[in-house]
């Protein structure tokens, strides 16, 4: 399977994959310190989606994906995703105001 290059595409497709078959989809992360490489993989044993990076920036994004998957897996695939993203929005909103949008 080829690596997906776009992060947003990776997130969208992995979540879709999980929703389609929650019981056999796993999310795997490999970190190699000596090479400074991070590989993320999501597969349901039929389809395999991978993402590779060496950027610290992407690791931050991965944290969000981790949260999505923890929530989806612990609470079930039917959980309302806006619940996860909603919290971020609340956090993001006051910051936005601070950034000079003068009401």
């Amino acid at each position, binding site marked *: 399977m080829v690596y997906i290059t776009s992060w947003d595409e990776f997130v969208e497709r992995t979540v879709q994959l*999980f929703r389609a078959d*929650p*019981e056999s*989809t*796993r*999310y*795997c*992360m*490999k*970190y*190699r*310190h*000596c*090479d*400074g490489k*991070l590989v993320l993989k999501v597969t349901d044993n039929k389809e395999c989606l991978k993402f590779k*990076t*060496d*950027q*610290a*920036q*992407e*690791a931050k994004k*991965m*944290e969000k994906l*981790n*949260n999505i*998957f*923890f*929530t*989806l*897996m*612990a*609470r*079930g*695939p039917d959980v309302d995703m806006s619940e996860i993203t909603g919290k971020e929005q609340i956090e993001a909103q006051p910051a936005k105001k601070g*950034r000079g949008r003068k009401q």
Partner: protein
Amino acid sequence: MVLLQPDPFLNELKSMFERSTETGSVWVTLKRSSLKSKVQRNKMKTAGQTIEYRCLIRATDGKKTISTSVGAKDHQRFQASYATILKAHMTALKKRERKDRKKAAEDKKDSGSKKPKRV
């Protein structure tokens, strides 16, 4: 495979990261699981019981495998400490290359004062 409580698991994960700085990799896998065998699940299904699923977390450095599981109630605390560990140990990743960014910005007739808006 050792099924640990979340906190010992995190401690062990930490030392796995520390052990693999010179050579080797660390794998962490998340999976939705009922922690029961298929036979058990089928029995429960026919008995009309609801199957409780948890998030199973497995980690290995190629030599040792550890695992733990978190449920709907405790996953948030776990994922926060997990994120902290990752942040503390994924230090070999490259920081954003500022030089190139500046250059590109200058090329666009935009002097270096431009700050990246998104963090």
